[in-house]
């Protein structure tokens, strides 16, 4: 089984590099790998021999290096792990991309499978949520077009007017539908709690909605 093939951290790095180069150019030579990983050509040869022994790559001196099907699968796993970690750092933790890359390189090899699985799951749902909130966009009431609806997320406080709006039933969670805009473009006519209310766009801009 592929999973049973255990690789050292450095071999994983080699495999990853080969995979990346392979998908970029197709044919790979030892010196490409050396350049990419910033190591001496001599150490590359040793590593390639080790990978070849594990039947992950096809390697003969002075020939183009290719991945075996097992090697391809293994490499994909490694790359995926790197990507998940990097995603976690960038998307969730908000780390800079370059630093995230570096961090992923350092952490990817030693990470226990369970933790990795959980992490993958977390990043997946997190990303899905992000997509959801993107489509369920937040917008101000002033930006809604007639016929659009949304629920109130919050009122930006602006003195007594906020209070008034709350009194009129525009509170968190209230459903608002824009009915129409006045012929001259300002006030708008909205329906909230079953009645019609008109307010200027100026005031409507302070009401943030989650658009339905």
């Amino acid at each position, binding site marked *: 089984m592929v999973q049973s093939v255990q690789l050292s951290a450095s071999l994983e790095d080699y495999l990853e590099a080969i995979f990346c180069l392979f998908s970029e150019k197709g044919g790979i030579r030892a010196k490409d790998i050396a350049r990419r990983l910033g190591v001496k050509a001599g150490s590359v040869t040793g590593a390639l021999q080790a990978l070849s022994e594990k039947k992950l790559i096809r390697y003969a001196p002075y020939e183009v290096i290719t991945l075996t099907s097992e090697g391809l699968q293994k490499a994909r796993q490694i790359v995926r792990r790197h990507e998940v970690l990097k995603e976690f750092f960038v998307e969730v933790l908000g780390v800079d991309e370059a630093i995230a890359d570096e961090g992923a390189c350092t952490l990817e090899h030693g990470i226990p499978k369970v933790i990795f699985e959980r992490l993958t799951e977390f990043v997946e749902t997190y990303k899905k949520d992000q997509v959801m909130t993107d489509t369920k966009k937040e917008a101000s009431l002033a930006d809604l077009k007639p016929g659009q609806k949304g629920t109130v997320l919050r009122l930006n406080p602006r003195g007594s007017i906020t*209070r*008034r709006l709350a*009194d009129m039933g525009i509170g*968190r969670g209230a459903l608002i539908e824009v009915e*129409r805009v006045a*012929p001259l473009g300002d006030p708008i006519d909205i329906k909230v709690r*079953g*009645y019609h209310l008109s307010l*200027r766009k100026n*005031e409507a801009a302070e009401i943030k909605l989650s658009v339905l």
Partner: protein
Amino acid sequence: MKQTRITVALAGNPNSGKTTLFNALTGARQHIGNYPGVTVEKKEGLRFYNGFEIKFVDLPGTYSLTAYSIEEIIARDVLVAEPPDLVVHVVDSSNLERNLYLTTQLMEMNTTLVLAFNMIDVARRQGHDMDLPKLSELLGCPIVPTVASRKKGIDRLLDTIIQTARHKADRPARPPLRYGKEIEQQLESIMRLIPDGHPLAEPYGRRWLALKLLEQDREILDRGWPEPMIQAVAQSVERIKKHVGDEPEIVIADRRYGVISGACQEAFRPSVESRHTASDAADAVLLHRLLGLPIFALLMYAVFALTFRLGDPLMGWIETAFEGLATATAGLWPPDAESPVKSLLVDGILGGVGGVVVFLPNILLLFLAIAIIEDSGYMARAAFLMDRVMHKIGLHGKSFIPMLIGFGCSIPAMMGTRILEDRRNRLTTLMIIPLMSCGARLPIYALLIPAFFAPCWHGLMMWLIYMIGIGLAIVCAWLLRKTLLRGQTVPFVMELPPYRVPTLRGVLLHMWQRGGLYLKKAGTVILAISIVLWAMTSYPKVGDEALAGLSEEQAGQVALRHSIAGRVGSALGPVLRPMGFDERIGTALIGALAAKEVFVAQLGIVYSMGQTDEESETLREKLRQDYTPLQGFCIMLFALISAPCIATVAVCRRESGTWTWALFQFAGLTALAYGITAVVYQVGRLLL
């Protein structure tokens, strides 16, 4: 001990049919006045029922009981200062959630409540299925369904009022509304800080006070609390902000709506989704993107036409009637006798009263039109349509309507500003209304334009004069809003109530109440001023010998010159000169103070023309000889800008509540007229 007098306060949202119910409950036994110091109507009425004398106090219509508007403060103060035996809260049944919001606040004030579910027929027709007994149980107060416009449920409401008032003491205390742990904690800590026997604690109740403090209610916060108290409240506010993420007042409002939603969900099932009512269909046309404004313009034209076309013949009748009365009065004296009493009666009092009463048809018709527009729900739409324009000059959409009426007559227009809720807004509108060129100025233009300008310019000149007025009104409104009446522009958060067919009774009552106010109050002041002006143009008398051998016209001229008005006119000569006016125009202008249209007649007397009107060619001939077109234009300009008549001062005093504003307006307009006319005259003279 049997109580036979019950005081009932009527509370409710605007447009809930509160006034209609009040009328149905009290009939014609109403007393209308103003709350002291403000121009918010105070209405009271009596009803005798089953041996009880029930006094109804109609509170101003409010959505809430915060200190947001003057109406809300008044409603609250009445409930506290003159606690009624019970409060009937009029609820629009087709709009329960928002209406019940006020209920929650009335409950907090520990009032004994009866809910009148008004317009229950509309609600049922719209498919709202309500479990009233259940709702009554949940809210802890009796509910009576009513249809005020058809007087249904009135007796049951009266029975319930009496029942509830009699058994008031037996009612178990209502558990207070709970606002959630965070707010309750802060409420308790504030309540603990309110000292025992604090003067406010007694009438309002501790919990209510604490709640208002937490809501940062300006009215309550500014009642001189000790410094540590203020700080504790500020701390509590901060804590809530931090924990809940919103201002406490918003959280509290949300919780109230939460309680209502909960109650409604249990007892109220909108069986059909009532999305497209007839009212919505009407709005689709009346507020249409393209049709909305033309329809509005047409409707406004109809109001205008109704007021002035229909009113003019009626005015003619009243004039004829007063003339007949004057002739009959004069007939009491021998034909040639000159008596000061006769002159006072005929020229002063009858002339003065006639001058006031003559506007009554216009005013009544206008108020009829306004009442229909208001009661039908279109007024809010008019404001909705025009707000963009009015907002630019710092006013509210509703200001447009009185301004438009101003083109007919400033007096009903100024009274029409009552539709504006915000005081600054209302004062600004009040101040600029006279700049809308009123009908009384028209005779002056009609006389002068043909006298000085070639026919092809007539239309343009007329248009120019009106436009100058509108332009000045815009500038003045803007200036006032930037200086004296500065303040937040009034946020435009206005309900668009469902359209309703106005009841004939309601509309007529509305019309009559407002028209009556004009007759009663403004009438007395205008009458007094008319008499003063009469005296000014009649005294001192010229000796008979001075008039000997003069024709009647010449005698009139000499008499006018000799009178106070004539002398003031002459004395004003040097002051008027920069505007290009001579003393003859000055004298005519003094007379025009009573009413602008008098200017033409006075000019006729000054020129010894006897009776003149704006069609008088000979007068035009004379004017052409004596004055340049520039002077003619300046006269029109002055007539346009200066205060239209003394009656507007009286009405402005009434509507603004103080003489300060009335005199400010008078002085301001006069100064503005003087300044602009003088500049135009001087610049014009250099250029021409």
